[in-house]
């Protein structure tokens, strides 16, 4: 009675487990973090869980380094491991490590429980891997949801803070609309081309001459809008300031770098690979989005009293700059995007580290006034914030300048010099909100403590623990390391440029 049942079942797809190792590491780490989070002693929960998260991100980076330079298609064409995936995973896991440290002693992790907090962060990162590596519409959508769902919860993780819940709900609603739009777009794209694989879609567009097909164009429009929601590009950015402000700051920091990198990864792959034969139809739209995003981000950030809102608008503006590299559809453009994401994230995360430190030290929250007198009070943090702001503004001798230089060069080479000129003019506008922060730090002499003893005035009836909390050494350390990196890469940028030199190899540009 030995029927050959196996013959009736299609052969299971070959799975290259080594190639999937970054994903497996992140998923495994998420499970371990969840289990450790159940441990009885509070010390284990508060100390070991973040450690698991750190180790997991480090392991994922290790896997990425081990796979460096490879270009392979995984799981029957569902995922593609190529330099672009690996570079962006490096950014994402790097941001993960830093955000873990930022969240280590944060209120949010305490309120929602450490196991959940860090395991959601790891799950989100796994989703980002799937997203940036996907070369198929179905995996793209799976990645998108795996990324989004943990982040909705993370945004609301300060369950006792109204703002945080509001941010989570807002993000959930707007994010779902974005996801739905993308999904609808994908369905139409499948309807128009009959394919789900990216390269197959490209072939179908080219061979069937679909570039002017109404169904196809609707699909492209819906994909564009959906991903613009996800990457917070204007005019689909309205959720960003509220969510960034309401979410716990370490989560905001993580989103502003990792989510952004993942979103741009998928945009590059979908448009530069699958939809490239129709590039002439979508390029003008993206140029317009780039322009609007740069303008809205830079204008919106002006006169924001809240640092997090300002950084939210600034991240919108920065996303607009990145789009300048995207609309070129060139090898240099993709390289410029990757170096931009790496170099920009340094200054951005440094800024968040200081914001978190001041949130814990003062009772002014993320208000810009919390930075007053930082120059004389906390010179290291003041220097970190200064470097961060100069880098975000793109002043020479900072990483941010080199990132912009690379973008300008790519734009000039791609016959978009005028777009580079717009970028530059708007980044001058950005000085009008970055520099006042620096001015506040260095000029604002608050009333010096009466006897210069530097002691915190004791409030009447204040219990010993009523004085503002301590920021924690890890914030100063992260900030200092990032600020030094900003300076070093501002002077010697070549290592980063070498790192991203092969970024576009898997795209066939």
């Amino acid at each position: 009675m030995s029927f050959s049942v196996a013959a009736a079942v299609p052969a299971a797809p070959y799975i290259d487990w080594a190639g999937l190792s970054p994903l497996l590491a992140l998923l495994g780490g998420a499970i371990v973090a969840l289990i450790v989070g159940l441990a009885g002693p509070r010390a284990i929960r508060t100390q070991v869980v973040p450690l698991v998260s750190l180790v997991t991100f480090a392991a994922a980076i290790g896997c990425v380094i081990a796979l460096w330079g490879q270009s392979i298609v995984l799981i029957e064409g569902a995922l593609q491991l190529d330099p672009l995936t690996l570079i962006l995973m490096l950014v994402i896991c790097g941001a993960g490590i830093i955000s873990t440290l930022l969240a280590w002693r944060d209120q949010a992790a305490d309120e929602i429980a450490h196991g959940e907090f860090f395991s959601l962060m790891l799950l989100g990162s796994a989703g980002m891997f799937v997203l940036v590596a996907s070369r198929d519409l179905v995996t793209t959508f799976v990645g998108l949801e795996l990324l989004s769902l943990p982040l909705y919860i993370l945004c609301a993780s300060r369950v006792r803070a109204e703002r945080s819940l509001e941010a989570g709900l807002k993000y959930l609603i707007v994010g779902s609309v974005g996801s739905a739009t993308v999904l609808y777009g994908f369905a139409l794209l499948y309807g128009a081309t009959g394919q789900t694989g990216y390269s197959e879609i490209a072939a179908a567009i080219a061979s069937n001459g679909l570039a002017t097909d109404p169904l196809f164009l609707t699909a492209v429009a819906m994909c564009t809008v959906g991903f613009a929601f996800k990457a917070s590009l204007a005019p689909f950015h309205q959720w960003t300031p509220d969510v960034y402000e309401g979410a716990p700051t370490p989560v905001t920091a993580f989103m502003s770098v990792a989510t952004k990198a993942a979103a741009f990864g998928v945009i590059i792959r979908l448009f530069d690979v699958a939809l490239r034969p129709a590039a002439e139809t979508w390029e003008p739209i993206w140029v317009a989005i780039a322009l609007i995003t740069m303008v809205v981000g830079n204008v919106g950030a002006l006169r924001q009293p809240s640092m997090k809102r300002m950084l939210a608008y600034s991240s919108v503006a920065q996303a607009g700059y990145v789009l300048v590299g995207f609309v070129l559809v060139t090898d240099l453009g993709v390289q410029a995007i990757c170096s931009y994401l790496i170099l920009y994230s340094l200054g951005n995360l440094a800024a968040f580290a200081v914001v978190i430190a001041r949130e814990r030290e003062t009772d002014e929250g993320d208000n810009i006034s919390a930075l007053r007198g930082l120059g004389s009070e906390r010179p290291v943090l003041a220097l970190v914030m200064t470097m961060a702001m100069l880098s975000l503004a793109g002043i020479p001798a900072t990483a941010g300048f080199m990132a912009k230089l690379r973008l300008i060069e790519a734009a000039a080479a791609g016959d978009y010099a005028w777009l580079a000129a717009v970028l530059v003019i708007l980044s001058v506008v950005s000085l009008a909100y970055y520099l006042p922060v620096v001015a506040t730090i260095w000029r604002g002499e608050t009333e010096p403590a009466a006897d210069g003893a530097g002691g915190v005035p004791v409030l009447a009836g204040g219990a010993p623990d009523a004085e503002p909390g301590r920021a924690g050494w890890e914030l100063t350390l992260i900030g200092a390391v990032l600020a030094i990196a900003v300076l070093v890469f501002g002077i010697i940028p070549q290592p980063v440029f070498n790192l991203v030199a092969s970024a576009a190899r898997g795209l066939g540009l």
Partner: protein
Amino acid sequence: MTIHLSIILWLPAVAGLLALLLPSRFARWISLIGTLLVLAYTITLLADYDRALGGLQYVTDELWISSIGVHYALGVSGLNLVLLATTAVIFTASALWTLVDEPDHGKPGIYALLMGLAQTAVLGAFLAQDRALFVIFFDLMLVPFYFLIVIWGGPDRTSAVLKLFLYTLVGSLLMLVGAITTGVMAADGGQPSFLLAELAKTPLGSTAQGWIFLAFALAFLIKMPSFPFHGWMPDGYSNMPIGVLAVFTAILSKVAAYGFLQVALPLFPEAAVEYQELLMIVAVASILYGSVMAFTVDSARLVLGYSSIAQLGFIVLGIFALDGRGADGALLQATNHAIVAGALIFVVAMLARRTGGSEKLSDMGGIAKGAPAFAAVFLVLSFALLAMPGTANFVGEFMILLGTFTSKMAFAFVAAIGVALAAFYALRLYVSSMHHRVAEKVNSFELTLREGLVIVPLLLVVIALALYPQFALSPAQDATSKALSAAQQVQNSDASNTTQGAAR
């Protein structure tokens, strides 16, 4: 003799860093020693530079950012030789002023570091032989000044410095785009290069030159400042601390003038010819506007600020006469004006001490009474400012006007009015502060030893230049003619195309 330009370039920054790290009571001394070392090094350079040979010497050239093709290329030519020494002189004077004359304003270590960085950036802009590097240093110059003004500036410093930053960066970042575009376009798909030496071989097509040239011109005109782009100047000047203002007015404007000769003219000869008259109009407008404003404002500081607009107008005029003598005169005038304007800024601070802190001319008067030596110093500097025959400023302005007469006579006539107006505002500044009735608040006293330490060496430089302007002129002549040659060729071919034999 080998002279490493990298040492000159980075020495001020290193000195600044030392000043920050060592105990703060040494900071001002270290700053002064750093500037003195640079001064000594640039004087060696002046003596060692082979004037007979000319051209680019002491070249350093390393590939810096290979992906983009930016070189770390430094060199000394006839164009920057004297300006380097001038920079060293002014920064030394400023460090000396801070050491001996200013009360402790707090954080001397940070002040020293920022001044060191500023000097490094300025020297870098002068030394750079790669235009991307030039633009980077040109942009970088502004950063230390931002902090210097924010921390030690006057009451309106926050808005003043923001205005200064926005104005100047719009220009210089557009210049950055222009510089990158020229390199990428010239490379035509290959590895771009921004080396100035190489670019002469592959000039751009004339169509692309237009807007890129204008971007460069805008950056330089804002930095100077020139007439319609000077909006940042009154607030900026009013809020800068004296030691910083002296450097800013003396040196930073000259980087812009130098940029025209070093980068813009050789790079965009056709556009330079096309927009020659536009720039000359800007120059003449600056001369007239600056002179008239300098004659009317009440703040002594702003008299100098507006007079700078006028003087820089002369320099632009000389450069865009596209005539060898005009450009030589412009370069000489750049040095002259740097020294004289720098010295006069210190004089304004000294005047303010004698009027109970006010820099208003209406609060001054009769200061010469009881301060004859101070009056004499001030008088000589005022004569230099108004370009009295016998000063090097006279030689400079004369050559500028001579060059302009030969190329565009109408402009020279109008500009000549500016020479007369200079006498008005310079003498008004002198007479209304030093002579007239002794004003209420004035409590005059003689030049102190400490003040003399700062002002007398600058005065000696002014006198030395007056006696022997050829010293600054001779290395320049060969270099300016090289800088102009491309533009003159374009001009000549245009002229021979239209009317036979009209070429000069």
